[in-house]
């Protein structure tokens, strides 16, 4: 039997995406240079690190958790990357005794350090049963304080060329940043859809007690999810630092809310058990397109924040609607 297309349901499931597409079309028709290659490339460069961070957060959301320390962890990772990858002949080098190290090694070091923070988050949530909201809020403040101590609240720059090339380089027409995002996207798609870990994750999000009874090691799964999330923040911070050409304690500020909002827009339910990598990508794209549209329209920056906040409220209201419609 052929299924009838439910226009109302389609509209309710994709309201924000439709709204942003309409806004983009309006901006494209009323302003110059919106539908250009440069703008597209700019969009891609902005989306890439945010998508990586949102992928990390999505795992936490699917298991009914959240990670409010994401943005600050991104900032700390950017600062660690900066300390490890400053040019040897840079006069204001943070660690003058440090030998020149290649960027992949620095990336691995930063990921290993940040994984420890993820493990702490995971252990607090899984063993102590502290609500993820509280546990990660505490970690957010700890990481920010730690970042201030390590950097003496000084902005860092003077990166070596190979690190800057990570953000500015291209492979043919494709920027390296987009390649990083593509690899992460494929990895997460495989992880969520083709591995036992992914199935456990959705099971925990659906019903933690039922998953436990069914033999899922909930504790280990949660710890793995938070470690992986922190590794993604490390990669995101590494790329954000390379893209900006500098890092400070304020790097990554507010990224966690953008990531959570992007996931919610993309259909990752804050109630857990639901979410796809493609949805996360759409969510990040929608949020970035909204920002670019508002810039092109010349909207006062203060109003831009209000508009972004309203989009988040609409996304949560739509999620609530879906939840209530199911009941």
């Amino acid at each position, binding site marked *: 039997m052929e299924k009838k297309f439910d226009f109302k349901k389609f509209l309710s499931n994709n*309201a924000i995406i439709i*709204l942003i597409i309409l*806004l983009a079309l309006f901006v494209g028709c009323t302003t110059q240079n919106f539908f250009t290659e440069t703008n597209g490339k700019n969009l891609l460069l902005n989306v890439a690190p945010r998508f990586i961070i949102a992928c990390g957060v999505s795992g936490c959301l699917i298991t*009914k*958790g959240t990670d409010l320390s994401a943005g600050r962890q991104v900032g700390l990772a950017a600062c660690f990357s900066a300390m490890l990858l400053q040019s040897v002949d840079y006069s204001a080098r943070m660690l003058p005794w440090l030998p020149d190290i290649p960027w992949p090694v620095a990336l691995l070091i930063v990921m290993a350090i940040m994984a420890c923070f993820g493990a702490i988050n995971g252990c607090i949530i899984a063993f102590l049963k502290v*609500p993820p*909201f509280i546990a990660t809020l505490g970690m957010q403040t700890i990481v920010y304080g730690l970042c201030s101590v390590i950097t003496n609240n000084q902005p860092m720059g003077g990166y070596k060329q190979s690190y800057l090339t990570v953000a500015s380089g291209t492979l043919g027409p494709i920027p390296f940043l987009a390649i990083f995002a593509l690899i992460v996207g494929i990895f997460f798609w495989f992880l969520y859809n083709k591995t036992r870990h992914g199935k456990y994750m959705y099971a925990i999000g659906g019903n933690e*007690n039922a998953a436990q009874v069914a033999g899922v090691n909930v504790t280990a799964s949660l710890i793995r999810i938070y470690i992986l999330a922190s590794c993604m923040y490390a990669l995101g911070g590494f790329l954000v630092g390379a893209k900006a050409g500098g890092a400070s304690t304020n790097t990554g500020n507010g990224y966690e809310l953008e990531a959570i909002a992007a996931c919610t827009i993309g259909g990752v339910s*804050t*109630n*857990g058990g639901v979410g796809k990598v493609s949805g996360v990508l759409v969510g990040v794209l929608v949020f970035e397109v909204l920002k670019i549209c*508002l810039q092109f*329209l*010349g*909207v*006062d920056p*203060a*109003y*831009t924040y*209000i*508009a972004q906040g*309203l*989009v988040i*409220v*609409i996304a949560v*209201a*739509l999620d*609530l*609607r879906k*939840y*209530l*419609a199911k*009941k």
Partner: protein
Amino acid sequence: MEEEKTTSETQKSDSRPDHSQLNAFENFYEKFRKVPLKYIDVFIGVCVAALVIVVLVGILKSKGIL
């Protein structure tokens, strides 16, 4: 009769989830359980209208019209 009443009450209470098992979002969502979908739709509509107004005001403000 009394037994029937007790049974129906038990069933009623069983249909409500155990709040200790819910996360913060679910607890929040559960508060809207009795709110008709129509009202949620109206709220979403109001938010969309507010978004459009904010964007328009932002444009007019940056151009110095407001």
